[in-house]
Structure formats: structure tokens, C-alpha cells
């Protein structure tokens, strides 16, 4: 029976982080891009909690994680509003077609 250790958490979080970046870079749909961002945040959350748990740093980690979750929610709300607004003007949410502003 093997013990789940800090490393495993870190591996998971790293994978999540990379997936997040990947999603942000590759996805065309703005909503998916936002998803990627969420992934990154959650990867960080996992780190916080894992470190808190295995490093005996008290409860700071968990608290921070809570903060981040709340904040992520707020961000998501605003983000969706903005995406909506963009959809109104561009009638799509395809991030790589929204490039009027350049050079």
C-alpha cells in the first residue's frame, strides 16, 4: 500500500498548470481560454494546500486557497460579462479573430 506524498500533489499541480497554459494558448473560444486560466489558479491552490499539509505551515495555505477560489469566482463573473460584451460587438468570441488593435 503506497503512501501518497507531497510529490504526487506537486506532479498533479504541475500537470494542471501546463494544461492550463496549453489551453490558453491553443483554444480559440474565449470561454475555453478562461477555463485554462482557472486551471492555472487551481494548480496554485493545490500547491498551497499540499505545502500547508506536508510542510506543517499551519492553516495559512488552506486559507489562501479559499481566498483564491473566491477571487477566481469574481474574476470568472467579470470575465464572462466581458466575453458577452465582446460577443455583442464582434458576434463571436473567437480570440484570434479579435485583432483589430495591433502593430
Amino acid at each position, binding site marked *: 500500500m503506497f503512501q501518497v506524498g507531497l510529490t504526487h500533489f506537486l506532479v498533479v499541480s504541475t500537470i494542471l498548470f501546463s494544461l492550463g497554459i496549453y489551453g490558453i494558448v491553443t483554444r480559440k473560444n*474565449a470561454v475555453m481560454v478562461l477555463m485554462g486560466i482557472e486551471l492555472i489558479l487551481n494548480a496554485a491552490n493545490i500547491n498551497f494546500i499540499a505545502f500547508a499539509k506536508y510542510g506543517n505551515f499551519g492553516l495559512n495555505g488552506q486559507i489562501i486557497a479559499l481566498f483564491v477560489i473566491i477571487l477566481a469566482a469574481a*474574476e470568472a463573473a*467579470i470575465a464572462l460579462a466581458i466575453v458577452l*460584451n465582446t460577443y*455583442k460587438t464582434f458576434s463571436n468570441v473567437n480570440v484570434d479573430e479579435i485583432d483589430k*488593435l495591433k502593430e
Partner: protein
Amino acid sequence: MTNLYQSILLILPEIVVSSVLIILVLSDLIFHKDKRVIPFIAGLGIIVTGAFVINQFGITGFAFQTSSQTVRNYGMMAIDSFGVFFKLIVTASSLLILFFSHASNEIQKTKDRLGEYYALIFGMILGMFFMISATDMILIYLSMEMMSLSSYVLAGFTKLRDRSSEASLKYLIYGAVSSGLMLFGISIVYGMTGSTNLYVINSLIQAPQINLFALSFAIVLIFAGIGYKISSAPFHFWTPDVYEGAPITITAFLSVASKAAGFALLIRFIKTTFVSYIDSNGSWTLINVFDWKPILIGISILTMTLGNFSALWQDNLKRMLAYSSIAHAGYLLLGLVVFSNQGLIAILIYFIVYLLMNLGAFLIVMLVANKTGSEEIDDYNGLGYTSPLLAVSFAIFLISLTGLPPTAGFIGKLYLFIALVDAKMIFVAVIALLNSVVSLYYYIRVLKHMYLVKPTESTATVVPSLNNRILVLALAAPVLIFGIYFAPIVDLAKNCLVILGL
């Protein structure tokens, strides 16, 4: 409980800001018929805030002290004159932005949503205030988000223009990503040190057994977050697009206030976390964990060069000013790379000057845009003959941005170069100087269009209202006065060096 009480005393300005924020939201609901009163409430709020900030002068202390095993006591927030200085910068620019907003057509068009507008601005201010004095990475992160979220919305505030909404989307995605990166970096640091408090980290990273690679990785990620706020290369890409797309008042606000907050944050972050000792000449000794000097030198040179050279090509003044503000971020970083109080002074001085001249430039662009509805450089042909006051003051601002005497801009640059030469970094100084020669091209180009091109029938005649005229002069006059007699700003700057800790 005394701890909390003291803390509340120490964060009175922030409290004021947040209460004003609430008042604005409420009054938006109350006066939904006629919102003309709201701007005045906002203005009043700013003034009160300013009063509280000034009142904080000389007070030092930690808000929300946390007990810990380490001997030195510390807290989530450090209240010190350095912070006060930057809060003043923010307050001043916010006040001016309120005036701008009052004068700006595109904002006034959105009558019914003025309440949100001002509320959001106060949201930004609140975030900035916390950024400026935060000494705990979580607070740093939260404050940055606080500010960003409001600014995302503001960037897209004028729904009517597609540029605007595109800007807000880009800003959102870009900002969210970089803050995400930052958060990830923070998490790693937390994992290595078990704390998110800069002072603790400072004391802990001096320990030999620290894993330097992981630490550098984390630091780079964090720097990515901050670098995006101060829009320094290579994290600047959002700047031109957002600046061009956002309402001009917001652009101006971002280019001064948020940059100021970002710099305050960066400086405090580096100085608190990585400086181990300050000698009698005021030069800093860094802890041997991360080699900041080459990174910052490289980044600052890259930033200013990129900003200046890209600006050469812009025909849209807002965008041109965006690039120029990137270049100025580069100059400002020069003040940091010397790692000495001399450089710090230079930065503070530069910010005072930068506040005046950059806002001034944006003001003129806005006033012209009010008339012509665009910021294309060809709209400025012969402006010098049709609207002398604007043109002359614009000339003054641009010359100051170039850094020629007898304008304040020269003093700002002078002190930066003094710091560089003092640190014997002649080579960097030479590059910076050549950069300023290049910058002359695009600044003087505007003068060329205003004066050397004769006015055509399409040339707008902008006759600003009395208030705006006063506003313009209020910005232009100090640019000249400080250019000739700059003792006051230097005095102010030198009294605002105190950064808590060490």
C-alpha cells in the same frame, strides 16, 4: 486587540477609499435620475482620501502584525513615507482623472452608467493603495486582482466602440494569465519558506540550504506578474492594444497610476525581500539568491529601446503615447538597477514629473479627440495656428517627455543619469541617452504636424472651456517651473525614501 486598533488607524486612507466606493454605489442607486452629483461626490472622496494620506506623512508602522518565531516584528502592510509618496501620486492622478472624465465626451456620453464608472475607479484606487503598502504576497496578489478586475471593466467601459471591448477582452485574458503565473510562483515560494510574508522570506532565503533553481523559477513567475503591471518588456504586449482601445481617461489613469502602484510594489518587493544591507552611501547589497542586476538591466534596456523604436511608427497618438509610456517604464527601471537610494530618489522624482507631463499629453489628446473624434496624427496638422494654447502646452509636454531643458522631464532624466554615473554604469547611460535621442523623432514629429504643416480647412479649431484651460495650464506650468527650479520635488522625494524594514 490593540493590534487591530493600531492597524485600523494605519489603514485609514484605504478605509476612506472603500467607504467612498460604497457611497458611490449607493448614490448611484439613489440618484438614478440625474447623476450630475456623482462626480462631485467622487471628487470630494478623493480630496478626503488625499487629506488622510498626507496626514499619514511620517507615520511608520505595520498593519496587521502577525506574531512569529522571527525576532523582527512585521505585518501584512507596511505604512511608511515611501508608500505615502506613491499613494499621493495615485491620489493626485485620480483627482486629475476625475477632471478629465468630466471633460471627456466619450465618458459623458455614458450618462446613465457614470455611477459604475466612478465606483470602478475607486475600486482601482483601493487596489493600488493596498499594492503600494502590501508586504505579504497574498495581499499583493489580492490587491493586484482588486485593481485589475476594476480596470478590465473600465477598459471596456464605452461599449459603443468595438476597439474598447476588444481591449477589455485582451486585457482580461492577458492580466488573468500573468496573475495566474504570479500566483503559481507565490505558491512555490510558500512551499519553500512556509510563509508569504516578505520579511520572513527575506530572513529565510539567506539560509544556505535553499533550492536556488526552484526559487528563481518562482521569482521569475512573480516578476512576470509585476512586470505586466508596470508594462515592461517582455510583458508589455497588452499595453499598446489596451491603451489604444480603452477610453482615453482610463488609458491615462493606467499609464500613470497603475504604473506607479506597480513600481511601488516592485521596489518594495525587491528591497524588502532581497536586500540584506544598505551602506552609508545608500547603495544596497543583495542577498546572493537571485541575480537581479543583469535581468533588470537587460529588461530596462529592452523596454526603452522597444518602446521608443516602436513608437516611431505610430500614427495614432494614443498608441504612440502607449509606446512612449513603455519606454518611460524602461527609464524608470534604470533607477532600480543601480540598487541604491540615489536611484530610488531618481525614480520618485521621475514619477512626479511623469505624472505631470504624461497626464498633460493625454489631456491634450483627449481635448482634441473630443472635437475630432479620433487621435490620428493628421488631425493635428496646423493645430498650432488654429488652437495655440493647446498646441503650445502639448509642445511643452512632449519636449518634457523627450527630456530637454528647461522642462521637468530633463530633471527627471538628469537624476536617473546621475544615479547611473554614480554607480559607474556609463554604458547603460549611453544607451539610455541614445534612446532619448531616438525618442525625439516621434515627439518632434507631432510638433512638426502642429506647426510646420500649414492648417487646412479640415484642421479642427479647439477652444477649450475655461476649466479645461485652467486644467491644461495647471499641468503645463509646473512642468516648466520644476524644470527651472526643481529643489521642491527633490526635497519631497528625498523625504519619501523610508521603506520600512532595514
